[in-house]
């Protein structure tokens, strides 16, 4: 099978080595897509290419990238400036994929930024980077500087007449900035609470201007689609949606890590790359794509990791970085840890999330420490509805309910045992 070996996103990345300078990057074919695009393509051509390639956003939600772009107002009457914002605020627990692209191949990201910006005719682009990603910060600053020097950024990019300014913004830490409208508020220098939608950022985003927010992995994919075409890109995948995907495994497996694989690689194949469970442990559950996705189980090893298939199995592919629960780790403790995270990161804007999550955290801690009561399970179940989709201002609390709700069903006996025995059997 040809496509197990193709790794366009990561082929240039060497662990523990600094990324290529612009000169070396160009020598290896870098920025060819920008030259091609700016000399022979129209903005609508780039959008069409991405639509035809069936690229879906890699930030977690899986929205089709080309369709997102096509809503941006175009033409002489479009409000200006228009913005492209890169969501590089990787903060979903269990997720460590964008770090690799940011540290390992910053020019690939910048190349993708130029293509996306050209497609929507953005004037200004921002990279919104996690404050803790200090190595990435240094490398991106250097790469941006090199790209300006070489004429790939700034005025009249390589003589095409297209102009784009690119700035790096270091965030100061808040999970809610992964929600795109909260991110835009943070960029504007405000508290990062989400905005009401509509209007969507495509129409009214940063300072009320048309704005696209795309994930690092999504943008890093673009140069390869432009260079090698739609058919090649679709051929990388085992599903109707094109491309490779970064998949990761963390938890008590033999070789935790990150791999670029065809979209649609199965959970079991990814677990095999991770070497399977450590000796003496067996698999109890898998959170497939970061903290805000429902638990899968050992029965899902044949499940293909792609947006639709994982969705049909009752979870989400999310970020594609799996967190593994073994049989010597307490599921109640794990869900308590996840809920504590979401409670801490609630922005406080809407009541169900602000008050509900700490409440759930406390109840889970009571159960974990032997103070649970019989009716707690009913209460927890009820809250997965009260904080679920449609009940809160944004997706943070519903995201928190995904692992909790699925754990209440999947690990019901463990919860009951804690409550009955008035202690955690793993402690």
């Amino acid at each position, binding site marked *: 099978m040809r496509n197990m070996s193709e790794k366009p996103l990561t082929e240039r990345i060497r662990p523990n080595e600094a990324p290529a300078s612009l000169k070396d990057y160009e020598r290896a074919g870098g920025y060819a897509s920008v030259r091609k695009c700016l000399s022979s393509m129209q903005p609508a051509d780039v959008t069409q290419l991405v639509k035809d390639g069936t690229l879906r956003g890699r930030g977690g939600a899986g929205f089709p990238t080309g369709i997102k772009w096509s809503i941006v107002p175009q033409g002489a009457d479009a409000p200006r400036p228009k913005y492209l914002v890169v969501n590089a605020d990787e*903060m979903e627990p269990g*997720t*460590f994929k964008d770090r690799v692209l940011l540290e390992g191949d910053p020019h690939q990201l910048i190349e993708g930024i130029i293509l996306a910006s050209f497609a929507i005719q953005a004037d200004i682009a921002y990279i919104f980077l996690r404050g803790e990603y*200090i190595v990435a910060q240094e490398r991106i600053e250097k790469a941006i500087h090199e790209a300006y020097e070489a004429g790939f950024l700034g005025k009249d990019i390589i003589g095409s007449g297209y102009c784009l300014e690119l700035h790096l913004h270091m965030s100061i*830490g808040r999970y809610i900035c992964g929600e795109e409208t909260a991110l835009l508020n943070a960029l*504007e*220098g405000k508290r990062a609470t989400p905005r009401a939608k509509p209007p969507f950022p495509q129409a009214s985003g940063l300072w009320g201007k048309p704005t696209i927010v795309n994930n690092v992995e999504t943008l890093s994919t673009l140069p390869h689609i432009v260079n090698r075409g739609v058919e090649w890109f679709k051929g990388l995948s085992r599903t109707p949606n094109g491309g490779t995907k970064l998949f990761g495994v*963390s*938890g008590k497996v033999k070789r935790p890590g990150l791999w670029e694989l065809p979209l649609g690689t199965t959970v079991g194949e990814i677990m095999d790359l991770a070497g399977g469970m450590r000796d003496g442990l067996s698999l109890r559950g898998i959170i497939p794509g970061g903290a805000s996705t429902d638990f899968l189980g050992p029965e899902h090893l044949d499940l293909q990791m792609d947006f639709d298939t994982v969705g049909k199995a009752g979870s989400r592919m999310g970020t594609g970085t799996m967190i593994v*629960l073994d049989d010597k780790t307490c599921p109640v403790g794990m869900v308590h840890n996840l809920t504590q995270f979401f409670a801490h990161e609630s922005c406080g804007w809407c009541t169900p999330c602000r008050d509900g999550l700490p409440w759930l955290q406390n109840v889970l801690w009571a159960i974990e420490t032997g103070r649970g009561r019989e009716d707690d399970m009913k209460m927890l179940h009820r809250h997965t509805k009260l904080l679920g989709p449609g009940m809160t201002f944004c997706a943070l609390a519903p995201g928190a309910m995904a692992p909790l709700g699925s754990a209440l069903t999947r690990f019901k006996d463990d919860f009951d045992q804690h409550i009955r025995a008035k202690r955690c059997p793993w402690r």
Partner: protein
Amino acid sequence: MLSDILKSEIESHIHEPEHRESACTEALRIVQRDRGWIDDESLKDIAEFLGMTTHELDGVATFFNLIHRRPVGRHVIRVCSSVSCWVLGYDALREALLAKLDVLLGQTTADGRFTVLPNQCLGTCDRAPAMMIGADLYQDIDPTRLDEILDRYA
């Protein structure tokens, strides 16, 4: 008072002159790097420099995790407390660290050398457990290595 050097570094993050306040999170980060934390006077100086009220800026400063509105030690230790690190031994690492430094989570050592804080997922889950000291990232931490790591910080 903000020094001219700090002011010019903050200015370099004002990309659109009509939106000076947009540089406020960068300004908080820059001033904190210089002074360790954001005291009331720094808050007032930054707000004034960017054309905001101190209350607006305090709303931002207290919202974000990485800004300190109280003094911290010379080195801030951020122990990743999220799920993969939890599975791989966050509790044991945290307790070993706190016992060694004789503090509770969130406190500063008596000699002002370290402050220990929990931190949300550091994005290095395949090498858990992890923590940062200042700008340095430590991965695959075995609590028996803590002395050797801490000795690097005066």
